[in-house]
């Protein structure tokens, strides 16, 4: 079994109200020195077969068309090594 991780983040120029809300809350809770927060999404996809180029291409397609809204979001795809958590 192999795991592929897709991280989805709002594009840098896009407003992130959630991230801002977190950032405003941090100093109230005593966590100082944090100047910016951006919040994203992480998908962990368990694969049936081997992680070859074809499998990754399909995942990229899924990310592009479904997991991420590429109008406002960027995504990265990476393979998580065995045992990594």
């Amino acid at each position, binding site marked *: 079994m192999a795991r592929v991780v897709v991280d989805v983040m*709002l*594009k*840098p*120029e*896009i*407003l*992130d*109200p959630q991230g*801002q*809300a977190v950032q*405003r809350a941090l100093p109230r809770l005593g966590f100082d020195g944090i100047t910016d927060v951006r919040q994203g999404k992480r998908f962990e996809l368990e694969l049936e077969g081997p992680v070859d180029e074809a499998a990754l291409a399909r995942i990229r397609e899924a990310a592009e068309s479904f997991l991420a*809204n590429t*109008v*406002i979001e960027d995504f990265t795809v990476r393979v998580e090594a065995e045992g990594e958590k």
Partner: protein
Amino acid sequence: MSLDTVKNALEHPDVEQPFAELGLKPDEYTRIREILGRRPTSSELAMYSVMWSEHCSYKSSKVHLRQFGDKMPENDAMLVGIGENAGVVDVGQGYAVTFKVESHNHPSYVEPYQGAATGIGGIVRDILAMGARPVAVMDPLRFGAAEHPDTRRVLPGVVAGIGGYGNCLGLPNIGGEIVFDPCYQGNPLVNALCVGVMKHEDIHLAQASGAGNLVILYGARTGGDGIGGVSVLASETFDADGPAKRPAVQVGDPFQEKLLIECTLELFREHLVAGIQDLGGAGLSCATSELASAGSGGMRVELDTVPLRDHTLSPEEILMSESQERMCAVVEPAHVARFMEICDKWDVIATVVGEVTEGDRLEIFWHGEQIVDVPPRTVAHEGPVYERPYARPQWQDTLQADAAERLPRPGTADELKAALLDLVASPNLADKSWVTDQYDRYVLGNTVLAQPEDSGMVRIDEETGLGVALATDGNGRFCKLDPYTGAQLALAEAYRNVATTGARPLAVTDCLNFGSPEDPAVMWQFAETTRGLADACQVLGTPVTGGNVSFYNQTGETAIHPTPVVGVLGVIDDVERRTPVGFAEEGQIILLLGDTHEELSGSAWAQVAHDHLGGLPPRVDLERERLLAEILIAGSRDGMVDAAHDLADGGLAQALVEACLTGGHGARVVLAEDLDPTVALFSESAGRAIVAVPRSEEMRFSDMCKVRGLPCARIGVVDGDTLDFQGHFTVALDELRTAHERTLKALFG
């Protein structure tokens, strides 16, 4: 890139500038050079390019929109007219109401959720900037064919965006429309209307007067949102293969907007604001130049003081950014401290970014160096004006000759019944609850009517029951057949819808959605529409108070149907007197008001049964509309009428079905014998309504109609759990309800 200062522009006059990429034509660029007597700096070029875009300058529509002023009917209710952020109307008891409809079409196609959400945000700030508390919103929407896969992408996103933003903001969504037609496939129309309430003395205007007054930018930080959005997004045609251009989409934050509303209203209450402008399309370029242009002096802005979300933004980008939830106020120096205190209380960032000056220039500085030095009027109010050529298209005659009255009609009782069931289940006439249930219709506790009623109605004074009613309408199919008549039909329908609920129509706002103004056929449609609308407003005595024009709604060479969306605002002295749609009581008499003609062209029946569009739209009789409205208002005021519904799409049949299903009671109906049943059921003749009156009031009501000369025919009785067209067919309400309610759920649920 090095900073392009005014000094630099003088020293290096021959730098090649990307005016074409910014959407400016060569002659417009030449004119900017003439106005300034030199080449513009890159910041100036950015400002001119967004402000002279079609979206901001109305350069193609201005010559036609003038009619709304020239032909304006006498109306004492009008307090502020066209040209301000929104028109203001007196509704009595010391209250004034401001309302406006705007388009957010192109952004909503690119990113449906955020496009629709920020459409709400933008129109709400327009209303707020007039000094009013926003009290309700409405969304007239047009999508491509209901079954098309792209509609499944666009519609749920748009609806979720409207709900997401409006619900978080705490504003009830009290109505609007949803229309499907293949002509909107690549160009959905997402219009948004907001209405706000204030006392007369609270009206605020967008102007910067009084040298020494400070310019304060408050609200969200400025980021790279929608840079060039105005000129690129709102004024360019999409290629046939979909949204290829993807500039930074604006993302809205309704919670920030809520803070902005409460903060701004408190600033108004303490009289701390001398002039105010919201930041919408064209952002700071628009706000600074419009404020300065409308005021008596000039303005000086230190652009590097603008709070940023992204510190890499260039001055040009800051000027063009369309970051949401920002406002710009002009404040006397003595009031600045208190102003800041209130902003701080609401957690709203506020920054003094400039001041009003003695001169007549808008000057903008970046770290001490001057990057803009322009006469503000040339940016904001004296942009180019085009007399675009227009010509009646050649296909218009062929289209009008192809009348729907010649199409085969249902011959038997079974066929008539099947036609009715098809009609009530068709996406345009089907129940819209799947959409409207996603909107909060009752938040704030003042909504007395919302979808599926003829108008939305909100109470504005809890003591007296004073309320306002609003309806929007616009039938693109009728307008395609004859834009002059179609526009008048749109107005007549919205006017009728308001009167049907018992409110007196007062004023109009319109959102004119069209194809490319560079196409003479489209320009002809636009000219005819504005002429029709202005003429009709004159007869009905309802002035146009403001609105918006959206051009370039076309994919390749194919334009959408000309679609003027007309919003009518009415006032009702006591909302307790309102008339709802649904039949509420067994035994009440159903009366049909107005005349039914053989008018099937452009009708919903022609579309559903034959996928046909041709012929001439129904005739308009504005005097009749006026009379009908007076009767409906009197019937409501004197308590004679218990239910009323206007007749429009789908004719008498659809109106009866809606009245039965909404009220939960059936009806026995006799169709006029001198009419073909298809005509009696499905003709869309204007100037008609059905009312349900108690038996005890029937005589009084029909006598009133007789005396005033309004045709009034007794057509049936509220009765049972079937809709029975006597001598033709009977259909159970359950069967109607199933057909009516399953469509949208099946398509999008």
